[in-house]
């Protein structure tokens, strides 16, 4: 049911499967020349952009299985990630970096075949995004330029993940440290 052929399967599928829809949460592959110049953590931002690409893709897939009132929430959450993706691309370009491109497709932790698995995919996408943005905070200098946006992104992802968990009747619906490894 994935709209694109899957690509970049991790050599170690077991490791990969536990890590959600993005390719690697710590994202060291995205470190670039000029990282940290002018205080912009380019590598961490690229990882966050990769997570936003993945989230947009995940919501596109999940949307095919979710209807009713949840579909409206899903559309809004997707729009939030699109806006975040665009803003992050602009920030990277401003920092002199070339923004990472989306993958044509992503491996999902489990097959998405119904509303319940679609909801779990949405939770995974938000969890991955939260982790990526937390990492931006950890790796940026102590000033609000980058951290304010990153905290906003982390918080939004954490709240949305909680809403999906509540919708899935998960108990508890919250986690104590959103984005923490």
């Amino acid at each position, binding site marked *: 049911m994935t709209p694109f052929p899957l690509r970049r399967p991790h050599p170690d599928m077991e490791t990969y499967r536990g890590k959600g829809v993005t390719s690697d949460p710590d994202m060291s592959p995205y470190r670039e020349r000029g990282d940290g110049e002018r205080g912009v953590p380019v590598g961490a931002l690229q990882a966050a952009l990769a997570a936003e690409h993945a989230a947009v893709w995940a919501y596109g897939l999940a949307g095919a299985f979710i209807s009713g009132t949840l579909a409206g929430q899903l559309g809004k959450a997707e729009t939030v990630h699109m806006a975040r993706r*665009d803003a992050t691309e602009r920030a990277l370009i401003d920092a002199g970096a070339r923004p990472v491109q989306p993958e044509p497709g992503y491996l999902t932790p489990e097959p998405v075949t119904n509303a319940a698995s679609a909801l779990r995919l949405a939770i995974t996408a938000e969890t991955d995004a939260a982790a990526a943005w937390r990492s931006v905070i*950890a790796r940026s200098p102590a000033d609000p330029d980058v951290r304010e946006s990153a905290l906003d992104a982390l918080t939004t992802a954490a709240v949305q*993940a*909680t809403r999906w968990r509540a919708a899935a009747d998960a108990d508890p619906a919250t986690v*104590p440290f*959103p984005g923490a490894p």
Partner: protein
Amino acid sequence: MLGQRLIGGLAKWLTVSGARPSRRHVLGTGAAAALLLLGTPVALTGCSPWSSGREGPDQLEAPARRAETDAAQASAVAQMAAGMPNRTGAELAAAAKSLAADRTAHANALRAELHRVHTGTASTTRAPAPPPAAPPAAAPDLANAQSALTEAMHSARDEAAALVMTLPGYRAALLASIAACCATHAALLA
């Protein structure tokens, strides 16, 4: 829906980049700071990364206390709400219980970090037990208790968010997760 792009609201990066100081300015400031650092090595030896050179309680002390107070208050609300027969009471009890658990986890993590940094110093003494949470009202009032918890979560989020902007990486990330968690509880309670 897929084709729609919303660029308002979240376009913070744009404004940030517009106001960014020039490279030369940054380099100049950096050089000045470096000179300053070179000139005052002795004064710096006493600095700790968390105190920005000034004496006083560790900046994690306040959020740790707040987490303990919130946990106590939420536990009290959970107990009170669980005694109510209606469905609202049961729901609030569940929300308050998970809030208490998360805030306890926050307090423990903050205390662990304080302990790690201050091991062997006088300030490691654990804060006295948090004051017993004042019963929200004489008569159990679910609505009041709920809004009190919501308010507490807003305050906790704001306090943690402010610290995120100034603390070093690891601590900033910890506080960021705590702020985000408080926001999720506020959203659930609202």
